């Protein structure tokens, strides 16, 4: 049901970890629902210099987290804010029908992290 690309991303996820003293942190989901994603960002001159994640969830949750961190890294805040679930799904070679909801989850968490950064820095 999962694409080869998604499974590859799931098995070898990039940017797993925590950024100490991150400029922004976002977390969505809760253990009772079976999915939690945390995303950490480091911002410099309006650019996402570093993005890391931790995730508890299904293969799709982990793969989309990994993908969204890679897509965001090096981008401007503006660009990163506009990464859509379609972008992520496409980059992973598609998601199974029942998992499309999932693909919104990682970009949303990224947006929460960016908003956290903006709030903290009163942008």
């Amino acid at each position: 049901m999962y694409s080869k690309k998604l499974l590859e991303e799931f098995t070898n996820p990039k940017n797993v970890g925590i950024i100490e003293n991150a400029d922004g942190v976002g977390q969505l989901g809760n253990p009772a629902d079976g999915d939690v994603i945390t995303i950490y960002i480091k911002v410099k001159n309006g650019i996402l210099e570093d993005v890391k994640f931790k995730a508890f969830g299904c293969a799709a949750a982990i793969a989309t987290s990994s993908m969204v961190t890679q897509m965001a890294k090096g981008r401007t805040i503006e660009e990163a804010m506009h990464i859509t679930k379609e972008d992520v799904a496409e980059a992973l070679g598609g998601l199974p029908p029942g998992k499309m909801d999932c693909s919104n989850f990682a970009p949303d968490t990224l947006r929460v992290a960016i908003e956290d950064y903006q709030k903290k820095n009163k942008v």
Partner: protein
Amino acid sequence: MKRIYMDHSATTHVDPKVLEAMLPYFAEKFGNASSLHSYGQEASEALSLSREQVAQTLGAQPTEIIFTSGGTESDNMAIKGAAYMCSSKGRHIITSVIEHPAVLRTCEQLEKEGFEVTYVPVDRDGIVDLQFLEDSIKEETILISIMHANNEIGTIQPITEISKLIEGKGIILHTDAVQSVGKIPTDVNELGVDMLSISSHKIYGPKGVGALYMRDGINILPLLQGGGHERGLRPGTENIPGIVGFAKAMSIAHENLEHDSRHMEHLRDSMIKKICGKIPHAKLNGHEKKRLPNNVNMSFKYVEGESLLMLLDMKGVAVSTGSACSSKSQKASHVLSAIDPGVDYIHGSLRFTLGKENTMEEVDIVVDLLEEAVIKLRQMSPFGEDI
């Protein structure tokens, strides 16, 4: 990559002896059992013989066996058939919260049609609350349907006790024995049941066939109308190769029950012990003793079951999270919710169901791969640090 299959409660491969028994009925002895000519007679004889074989393994009479298309149909037929037949006597049904969807969804459908259904809860080990069940019985109770063994956590239910509880009350007792047949004794008289559902593909028989045991004297309204097959209770041209294979699978399972069970029990107990020894924060779901010899269902704190399953699959190991039927949905299993292992464990369950051909080497390989996978996922988890 050598693959290791530990999902025998989802389905089993067909035993070579079963396939061998089936083969002549596809192209040579292919007649319709209702036909009067010699081709029909060959089929009709195979049907009779299969019926005797199946009956014999259950301690039943051949007239008490109705062949169906599988476990789901047997469950639907038993529950709806009895409910519709007895609805003038009463409209109350008792079942449990951990039944298979084939029973639960059927009961829900009957609720929509005006029947009242009591769902008996289970304790932390997944055993139905006998006192609750007894207290639920009333004048209008016509049917009790409690599964013999649970498909997710493997707990064995006290069917004999239930049958004693309702003796003489005129209540029909049905049990879904899809998971127990071939793994623990299922003599219908020892169990004291009136109806019992079986599915062939869980016991090394072919898919698409099963049976409903129906005690002589029990009457139900058939689900399907048509020709007079199966004494009018289940019309449709009989699936002779399937039925022959199913009967053969029943016979083999019955003959080897003790041997195979002991083997699987041994693997099961080692596997549980090894997992608990190697992986911290692992928890057995279901009862330690009153469980199927082949069921290992464990939860791992802060790990999500589906990703664990996928990581193991990448290494060639086939397991399941809960029942196969709900593997595609993301909701927590209704069975795990019922025994409530706690919020940190409920999404992290994995079901290993052993087969007669699994070995201790395979168990060791799987435990090692499992440990690796759990560590990997915990490192990724936002909660990983806590443990």
